[in-house]
């Protein structure tokens, strides 16, 4: 065997910086959220479906012009109780209205109520909750306010408020916003308290960081996942509450199209014309279920523990 010669070797330069280098690709939270979100095959079609459903519900009533106060075919016996067909997609009801128009007009109001109140609830709830979690002074009296409202049945609160304010779209938004923000604020307060005293927050304090900056930079980024989970539950539940209240005759009132009132009107035709009852019920189920599932998928994706 040939003898190894020293001149075959040379000293490799030692670069201390080289060991500090990170080879992994750059991490970005929102990119990882997106990648995790689209990983499951159901999410993309389902998301497209949900968006299409919401957009369609918002647009279709504008085009049909349906209002519950006008019944153009009420004297036309030929137009009543028609079964679903190519011409009348969901059929017609006892006063000759297109069920297709009735259902989408109802869905539109449900979506408006739930989305608008959810937006108001989120803004107020997160802001108040974050400050509440930090301020011991505020906690003292806020917790009492919360205890009072949390121990009164939710439905009772909603019903009393909607009786006082009278029926209507705005009323329902105000009713939901007035009550639900407190529950979200309490939820956020608890979450803030859990991470408030962690060492990195203490470090920020030692650097003189203001509380508001700590909320925005140190606390809320950690809460994205739990907040999205909360939204995923909140929107379908608001839709259900709107339907339920309208079903009881407390929600939107007779001037507004509503899935709840439609269901309560059609429930008497369950034997003779079952499609009248089942079509709005199933529309409601599909709408809130798909919103919930997409919301849950998004909530999972925003949890960094699911990121690969």
């Amino acid at each position: 065997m040939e003898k190894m010669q020293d001149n075959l070797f040379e000293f490799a330069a030692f670069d201390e910086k080289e060991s500090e280098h990170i080879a992994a690709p750059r991490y970005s939270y929102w990119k990882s959220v997106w990648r995790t979100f689209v990983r499951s095959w159901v999410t993309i079609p389902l998301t497209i479906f949900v968006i299409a459903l919401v957009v369609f519900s918002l647009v279709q009533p504008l085009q049909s012009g349906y209002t519950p106060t006008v019944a153009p075919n009420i004297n036309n016996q030929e137009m009543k109780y028609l079964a679903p067909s190519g011409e009348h997609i969901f059929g017609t009801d006892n006063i000759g209205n297109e069920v297709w128009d009735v259902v989408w007009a109802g869905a539109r109001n449900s979506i408006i109520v739930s989305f608008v109140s959810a937006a108001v609830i989120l803004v107020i709830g997160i802001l108040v909750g974050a400050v509440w979690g930090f301020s011991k002074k505020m906690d003292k009296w806020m917790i009492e306010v919360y205890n009072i409202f949390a121990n009164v049945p939710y439905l009772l609160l909603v019903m009393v408020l909607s009786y006082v304010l009278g029926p209507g779209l705005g009323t329902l938004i105000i009713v939901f916003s007035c009550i639900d923000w407190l529950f979200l604020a309490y939820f956020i307060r608890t979450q803030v308290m859990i991470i408030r005293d962690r060492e990195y927050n203490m470090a920020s304090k030692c650097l003189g960081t203001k509380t508001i900056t700590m909320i925005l930079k140190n606390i809320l980024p950690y809460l994205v996942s739990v907040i999205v989970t909360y939204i995923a539950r909140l929107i379908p539940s608001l839709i259900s509450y709107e339907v339920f209240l309208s079903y009881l005759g407390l929600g939107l009132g007779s001037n507004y199209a509503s899935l709840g009132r439609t269901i309560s009107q059609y429930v008497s035709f369950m034997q003779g014309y079952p499609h009248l009852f089942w079509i709005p019920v199933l529309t409601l189920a599909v709408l809130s279920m798909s919103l919930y599932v997409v919301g849950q998928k998004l909530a999972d994706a925003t949890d960094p523990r699911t990121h690969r």
Partner: protein
Amino acid sequence: MSDMTNREVLLSLRNVEISFDNGGKEKFKAVQDANFDIYKGETFALVGESGSGKTTIGRAIMRINPLSNGEITFEGNRISGKLSKQEDMNVIRNIQMIFQDPAASLNERATIEYIISEGLYNFHLYENEEDRIAKVDKALEEVGLLPEHKSRYPHEFSGGQRQRVGIARALIMEPKLIVADEPISALDVSIRAQVLNLMNKLKAEKSLTYLFIAHDLSVVRFIADRVAVIHLGRIVEIAETEELFAHPLHPYTISLLSAVPMPDPIIEKQREPIVYTETVAEKTGPDYEMREIRPGHYVYCTPEQGIEYYNTSMNQ
């Protein structure tokens, strides 16, 4: 010893008492009657077992824990209690902290750039964006990290790197005093020396003063100029490092030093740790105070015990 009297006092604790409300009638006193001075440019170590109150003192200096009695002064100005906005900013800029757990002390949802810039943002300590970036780059370089790390998140770093990010975050404020709360106890043994050497290098370059809180005596011997031993919330002995290791006087210190493991199997086998019980040296009483037994060497004792300690130190 003679130069000690001429040295400038940077931080001074007088009769510091820190208590916590634990729901009972009597508040729990975590620290009682703590008195010591930290001189400019020295590394002052605070050692004691867990629960002895050493971290509490560090946090009191950082004003996280309020004092229930006594006062802390920095460069002659009181920094405990209520401060004006200007004083507050001054203290924050001059006293910074390095935390124990590098995994918990960095905001996981922020980039390294934000973490290091945080102090700069708070007091707007930069002229423009380029100036801020330049300062961050410089701070990263000083602790041996790379400018490319700015856009990274803490979870991508090793423990030692994270701790250096923590050091850079403190350093960018250009502090005079750094409170290092067990900065290496959560690190892997292989990188402890790296962080300690970095701290020593920075101290020399930036003429820093450290309050080094630790329970590891071999580390203290390596890094500290003077040592205070704290036991059950009371400082029992203060001396220069070599003096303390050569002539430990308080029974607790003696016991503590006897517990240091030796990296020699034969000596280690024969080592007999001295067990310290409260009866060996009665805890406290009206006669007890810090007494100077040898030059610069203070022990918490009664006058009689002081004479006894003096005699034994002469015979050593």
